[in-house]
């Protein structure tokens, strides 16, 4: 289905008047593959983690707290779920506006520091917790000394890889982003069921509103970055470009003006944002919202030529639950009290593709969020990774049948969003279509397909 979408997208691009898009057609399929693969890997890892760890006998503390406070009954659950979801969205909105404000005031060091802190906290605390759960479940006799030695080490190395993509191999940088997404998504699957679904739907709606409405925080942020010609530091997964320009340093655009090493360096090419991390810190009573939203804007970007515009845009940031009042409302969300981190993923909206990316002339289009960068690589915000994986992880808690259905739905949604990107050529949210399809497929599978398959199996018609 990705190929069909790729062909359709390429055809759409041709219809839209791209000159000589044969070179783009050639690599469009591979571009899409390079973004579908990490999304699929993230989902697979979350499903594996959920399958391994979810059958633990101890009830999730969330259910205990939620049940205690909300009382028995599905109605109460739904009510508390809706309240939680709305609170979450409100907190995310506030956090995003805060980030916009910081970005507007050019407080990039504090944004970068926050970003580093939040990603390090996610890797250290969540990663440590997941590692401990795995060790306990698998009864692997690792000793405490090695564990204490390896965990901070790995967390520091992965955080560094996620934050400064220029210092590490691209593969490691992408792996670090996927790791952060997996850990955050696993953490979200620990919420009670109704809360998870309400949260997903609410975040999809928020994403839609924040990107497309004129007053939405993400759109404001994007426009701010466009007019300033700056990068928004955010956690954005960027696929490796299929066709790196000859002599052009794809990643270092953000940091310096590339000297004409190969002699044909195009100083006007768009800068790619590789690993922007958007992190918003959770308050002391981290109610367990993990959103990675950190901004890191590169000062050197301002030195680039005016044509080299770099739009990096983070999607919605996860809620920033810091206040006690919020905590009281969302008591179901028990946080990591010792951690002060909330990782807010930026769900980067899809960005229009750059049709003439193989040209020497630069593209003046702004690359916002997900989309095709000047070198044709597709960028996807980490928040999208996380919520896709949360959906699939929650589906995994029921049965593998729902996992397959939701996986296909999400990939189809991603393909449709890329198609829309090719048509509309502006920033698009990546969550709504996929989450809508995923939820619909989950409900249909659980109610209709399962009965059908069970009947077929018991009658030896199909296995």
């Amino acid at each position, binding site marked *: 289905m990705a190929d069909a979408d790729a062909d359709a997208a390429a055809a759409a691009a041709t219809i839209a008047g791209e000159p000589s898009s044969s070179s783009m057609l050639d690599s469009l399929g591979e571009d899409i593959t390079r973004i579908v693969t990490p999304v699929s890997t993230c989902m697979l890892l979350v499903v594996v983690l959920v399958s391994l760890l979810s059958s633990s006998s101890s009830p999730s503390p969330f259910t205990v707290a939620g049940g205690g406070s909300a009382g028995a009954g599905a109605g109460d659950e739904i009510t508390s779920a809706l309240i939680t979801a709305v609170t979450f969205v409100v907190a995310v909105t506030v956090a995003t506006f805060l980030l916009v404000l910081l970005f507007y005031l050019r407080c990039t060091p504090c944004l970068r520091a926050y970003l580093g802190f939040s990603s390090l906290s996610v890797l250290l605390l969540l990663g440590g917790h997941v590692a401990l759960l795995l060790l306990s479940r698998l009864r692997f006799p690792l000793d405490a000394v*090695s564990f204490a030695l390896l965990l901070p080490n790995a967390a520091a190395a992965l955080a560094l890889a996620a934050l400064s993509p220029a210092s590490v191999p691209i593969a490691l940088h992408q792996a670090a982003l996927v790791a952060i997404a997996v850990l955050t998504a696993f953490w979200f699957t620990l919420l009670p069921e109704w809360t998870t679904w309400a949260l997903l739907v609410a975040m999809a709606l928020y994403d839609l509103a924040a990107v497309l409405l004129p007053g939405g925080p993400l759109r404001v942020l994007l426009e701010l970055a466009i007019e300033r010609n700056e990068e928004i530091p955010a956690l954005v997964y960027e696929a490796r470009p299929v066709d790196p320009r000859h002599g052009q340093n794809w990643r270092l655009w953000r940091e310096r003006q590339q*000297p004409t090493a190969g002699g044909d360096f195009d100083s006007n090419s768009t800068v790619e944002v590789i690993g922007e991390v958007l992190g918003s810190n959770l308050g002391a009573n981290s109610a367990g919202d993990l959103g990675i939203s950190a901004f890191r804007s590169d000062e050197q970007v301002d030195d680039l030529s005016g044509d080299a515009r770099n739009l990096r845009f983070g999607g919605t940031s996860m809620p920033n639950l810091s206040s006690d009042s919020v905590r009281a409302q969302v008591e179901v969300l028990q946080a990591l009290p010792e951690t002060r981190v909330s990782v807010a993923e930026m769900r980067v909206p899809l960005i229009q593709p750059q049709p003439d990316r193989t040209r020497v002339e630069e593209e003046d289009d702004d690359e916002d969020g997900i989309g095709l960068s000047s070198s044709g690589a597709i960028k996807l915000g980490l928040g999208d990774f996380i919520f896709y994986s949360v959906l699939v992880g929650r589906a995994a808690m029921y049965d593998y049948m729902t996992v397959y259905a939701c996986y296909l739905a999400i990939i189809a949604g991603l393909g449709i969003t890329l198609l829309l990107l090719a048509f509309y050529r502006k920033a698009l949210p990546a969550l709504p279509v996929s989450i809508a399809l995923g939820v619909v497929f989950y409900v249909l599978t659980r109610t209709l397909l399962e009965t059908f398959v069970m009947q077929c199996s018991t009658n030896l018609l199909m296995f």
Partner: protein
Amino acid sequence: MEARVAGVPGDEESGLLPRPSTAGRRQPTAAARRAHPPPPVWATVDGPLGLPLEEAEGHARRFFLWGFACLPFLWAINCCYFWPVLRSPSSSDAFSRIHPYVLRSAVGFTIFSVVLLTWATTFIIGGERLFGPGWNDLVMYNVADKLGISGFMG
């Protein structure tokens, strides 16, 4: 990126290529090599997407020094990132300043991993027979249970 090596004999296209060709460079196309002036040498495993040569030395040194702060994985990253430097002969002039740092990083990481693996393997295989009752106090899942952190955090 001026890495002209003056007076180096024996290059494959002596006089045309100022840099030794055995340095692991990643050229985008072979045609480009012929058509353009001497192509740049990439010190990193990412080729043209990685660091340019003049920054590589500072980067390698920083990672090497920071690895001593109990972060041996930085040494591993150093080795992986500058794999072409590691694989090139140590007499290659383009990488002459980077090579010592990467080599020492590799040595440091090897020592660290050998020590850690030896200790972990001894612990796992030896078990209680070797360590006595103290083994149970050192195993991570017991430590986690004792500290109460194997449930969800907090």
